[in-house]
């Protein structure tokens, strides 16, 4: 019998703790328990047997920490083979033929993934893939990924399991007292991610006792349509007469866990502090229980690495601003790979009240397959809003989906056979809620009924891939009403038809309706209200638009969706921050580091003064004064940076008015943090200050290989390259980069900086200049610029 069938009708009993029992048999502190599979196979096999005798249906191999970060590949191969053999031997020695399975146990790597840590996502996938392949070869029945405390690492493990086996996969996470994973994910966020990727059972283990884990279990019960696992500790540990004891007896433990079973959990076992006695008590307590059937929840969830957004409660707002269409400044930023510009847009939309951010970087001349995954990763560093990945390029889509930390929105699929064949396999593999455009090979149908028919066709086709309506969201396509006076009417009745007849979620890109008309927000807001009234569940909008946000808040207030009118009142009484621009001039604002003030003053000033005059008469003198103050130790680093940011805000206003061709006047400087180094505050400081002084800075980011730095230096014919390193371990990478540039771009001047460097070492590795701080770097760059 397959475990996935057994789960449907039975309570599944897992095993209990392994480590504690091995310690009782003499495992020393610091000794790796996995080695006992080889040196003490009988002890390990006997523990498995004790659990089977106590009533376990599933036993997990003693391979929690068996991975290539701790063992050589020969050791790993031998350990996993022996571990599976030990478990299998225990199963075979059972006399009756109750159903029993051997699970390949996979624990965390013990490393943090990038960007927080130093383990690359794909490297993590490959570490897990190796374990899975070895387990499959040794003949395990299922894969049990457990005690994971980070969503990204959990995704890497599940992806590896799915890509390297067709076995059932159980996934269990370890939650803290705050009800979240160590890196912040809520239960709903994990349900979204794991169900989206097709885990066969999901749940909770370790960290706390059953009672303390109940709030987390209840969240799983609320959102999950997948069988649930509960494998808690035997309460809290303490030391009594030199021995570790746990607060719950086997009987109490079984009682508390069986409570969860009565609520709908049907895969149970124990973690730290539990023994065969606890498992026997669990078995006894649940022997006559017929598990509750698993309810299909029909809740559409998308998620980031910390939180989930649920559809169907209040309409969901998707920010549209990260999109180059019609935005020259944005296009220019993309062409220069200036991702920081996009990050500022992302934060701006979050602050304005978006729930999800659409991300589109499609510009002619840009390789989306390379840029999009990078942009997605960078945006996830600065905001934990879920993202909507928006591209027409299936390769870019797959790369972005793979790297995304969570379960994203996917924009989009349509009724064309080709589109569905390209997108649905990706939705199935990586998880996601996909926007379905109601158009097909014949184009966009005129009537609402025809769009409904396409929606139904998409629904049927998705079902063939095992993608249900809870992961589809239909777009009846907002069209320019200026081109066809009935366009909006058809779109709106399409929304109503789909909501009413299919009970499915709907979405619209609101702004399209006003294309070609003046004062577009005026029309957009009314269209938005009408769409909401017709049942719209999500909208792609500009969250900075006051009319749109007013329409939204008013709709919520009128539909009983705004508790105590809090949202409405807060927006209705919001005072625009009055910028006191009269009492202070731009130069003072910059010197004092007042970013908002500098922006507001420049916006006013540019109406009456040329940009060149503003730069020469206001901004440059301010920067000079601050720079001198810094060098004389009158102004300190935070003050210098605040001024630089204020100047940056003023420059941004000037650029937006003067247009994208207002190029920097000084030479190109390429900046990068060298390979292996992920610390980039220093480099960003230099970037900010150099930009202030008019240099064309191209920032290659952190952890950049010598080859990549060289190729950009050559491509841009850069006069200066600035390299940064914080750790002694990455100095060889810096040296190698300097050597490469010297060899192939001898005219490029090299400046270096970072905590571990000094003048002497800089000279030794062949750099032209060592910059102790940002102002020194500016002085050097000015010098080079003039030669």
């Amino acid at each position, binding site marked *: 019998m397959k475990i996935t069938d057994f789960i449907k009708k039975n309570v599944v009993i897992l095993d209990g703790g392994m480590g504690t029992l091995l310690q009782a048999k003499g495992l020393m502190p610091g000794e790796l328990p996995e080695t006992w599979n080889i040196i003490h196979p009988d002890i390990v096999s006997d523990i498995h047997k004790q659990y089977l005798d106590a009533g376990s249906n599933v036993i997990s191999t003693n391979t929690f920490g068996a991975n290539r970060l701790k063992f050589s590949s020969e050791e790993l191969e031998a350990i996993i083979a022996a571990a599976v053999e030990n478990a299998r031997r225990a199963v075979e020695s059972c006399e009756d033929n109750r159903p029993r399975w051997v699970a390949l146990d996979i624990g965390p790597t*013990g490393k943090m993934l990038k960007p927080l840590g130093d383990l690359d996502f794909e490297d993590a996938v490959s570490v897990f893939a190796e374990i899975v392949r070895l387990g499959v070869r040794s003949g395990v029945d299922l894969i049990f990924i457990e005690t994971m405390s980070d969503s990204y690492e959990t995704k890497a493990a599940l992806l590896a399991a799915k890509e390297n086996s067709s076995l059932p996969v159980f996934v269990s996470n370890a939650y803290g007292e705050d009800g979240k994973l160590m890196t912040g994910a809520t239960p709903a966020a994990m349900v979204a991610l794991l169900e989206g990727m097709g885990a066969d059972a999901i749940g909770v283990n370790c960290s706390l006792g059953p009672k303390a884990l109940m709030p987390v279990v209840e969240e799983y019960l609320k959102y999950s349509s997948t069988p649930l696992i509960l494998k808690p500790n035997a309460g809290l540990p303490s030391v009594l007469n030199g021995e570790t004891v746990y607060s719950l007896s086997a009987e109490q433990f079984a009682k508390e866990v069986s409570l969860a079973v009565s609520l709908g959990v049907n895969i149970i076992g124990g973690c730290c502090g539990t023994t065969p006695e606890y498992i026997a008590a669990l078995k006894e307590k649940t022997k006559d229980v017929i598990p509750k059937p698993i309810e299909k929840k029909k809740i559409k969830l998308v998620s980031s690495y910390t939180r989930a957004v649920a559809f169907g409660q209040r309409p969901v707002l998707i920010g549209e601003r990260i999109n180059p269409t019609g935005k020259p400044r944005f296009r220019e930023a993309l062409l220069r790979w200036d991702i920081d510009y996009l990050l500022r847009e992302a934060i701006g939309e979050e602050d304005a009240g978006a729930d999800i951010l659409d991300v589109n970087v499609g510009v002619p001349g840009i390789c989306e397959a390379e840029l999009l995954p990078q942009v997605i990763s960078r945006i996830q560093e600065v905001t934990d809003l879920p993202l909507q990945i928006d591209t027409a390029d299936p390769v870019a889509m797959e790369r972005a989906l793979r790297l995304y930390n969570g379960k994203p929105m996917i924009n989009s699929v349509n009724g064309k056979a080709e589109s569905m064949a390209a997108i649905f396999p990706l939705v199935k593999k990586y998880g996601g809620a996909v926007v379905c455009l109601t158009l097909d090979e014949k184009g966009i149908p005129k009537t609402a009924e025809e769009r409904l028919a396409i929606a139904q066709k998409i629904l049927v086709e998705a079902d063939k891939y095992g993608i249900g309506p809870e992961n589809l969201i239909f777009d009846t396509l907002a069209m320019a009403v200026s081109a066809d006076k009935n366009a909006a009417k058809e779109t709106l009745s399409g929304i109503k038809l789909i909501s009413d007849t299919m009970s499915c979620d709907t979405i619209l890109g609101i702004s399209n309706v006003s294309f070609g008309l003046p004062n577009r927000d005026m029309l957009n807001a009314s269209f938005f209200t009408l769409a909401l009234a017709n049942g719209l569940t999500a909208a792609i909008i500009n969250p900075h638009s006051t009319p749109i946000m007013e329409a939204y808040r008013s709709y919520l207030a009128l539909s009983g969706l705004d508790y105590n009118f809090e949202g409405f009142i807060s927006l209705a009484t919001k005072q625009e921050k009055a910028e006191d621009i009269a009492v202070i001039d731009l130069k003072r604002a910059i010197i004092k580091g007042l970013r908002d003030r500098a922006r507001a003053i420049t916006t006013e000033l540019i109406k009456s003064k040329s940009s060149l005059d503003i730069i020469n008469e206001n901004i440059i003198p301010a920067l000079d004064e601050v720079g001198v103050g810094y060098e004389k130790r009158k102004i300190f680093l935070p003050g210098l940076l605040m001024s630089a940011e204020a100047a940056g805000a003023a420059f941004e206003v000037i650029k937006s008015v003067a247009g994208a061709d207002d190029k920097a006047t000084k030479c190109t400087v390429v900046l990068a943090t060298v390979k292996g180094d992920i610390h980039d*505050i220093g480099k960003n400081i230099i970037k900010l200050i150099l930009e202030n002084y008019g240099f064309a800075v191209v920032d290659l980011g952190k952890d950049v290989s010598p080859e990549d730095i060289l190729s950009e230096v050559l491509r841009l014919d850069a006069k200066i390259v600035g390299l940064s390193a914080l750790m002694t371990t990455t100095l060889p990478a810096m040296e190698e980069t300097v050597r490469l540039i010297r060899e192939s771009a001898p005219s490029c001047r090299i400046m270096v900086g970072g905590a571990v460097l000094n003048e002497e070492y800089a000279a030794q590795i062949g750099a032209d200049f060592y910059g102790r701080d940002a102002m020194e770097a500016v002085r050097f760059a000015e010098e080079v610029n003039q030669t």
Partner: protein
Amino acid sequence: MNDNLVYIKSFASPDVDRREVLRYAGVRESTEEVDLMLDECIKEAEKVLSYKACYRIYDIGVYDGELDLGFARVVSRSLLKSLDGCKRIIVFCATVGVGIDRLIAKYTALSPAKAVMLQALGSERVEALCDSFCTEIASELEENGGTCTRRFSPGYGDLPLDIQREVFSSLECTKRIGVSLGDNLFMTPTKSVTAIIGIKM
């Protein structure tokens, strides 16, 4: 006798020492604007900071000049001196969590000024956490008539940083409080500290 047990403690937020934060940020003389920016940083960071530590107790001994810490053996004159008169130690790891790293990453791109200040704040926070931890341990010991030494971290004096590996496998920091060790021996979350304190009874 060595406990097999790793203990975990959570702490309330210790008061922020603003002067100390400014010192870490390299500010010798603050201005109204810098003070305001620090206020904003504190307000934002408070929402994501958590204060946790895990620790374990070991009997120690000296054999042929080598210090047996119960979880590792080292040669370190400075640690030996610090542990003079102690028969047991507490080895601990403390962290203010991953949230502040996320804030720093966010502001590294958006506002390096805030990133610098948040770095400083994070350093001050984790040191304040260590102070809270050590104070609590000291008062627990005092009840039993004991005292403890000042905390001593890997990398201080001649205690090699490499010992971090043994500290991490002994405390299982990743599982207990979410701290992991990179290949370069840097910790994630970055605002984390490991240290040893000696116990005198």
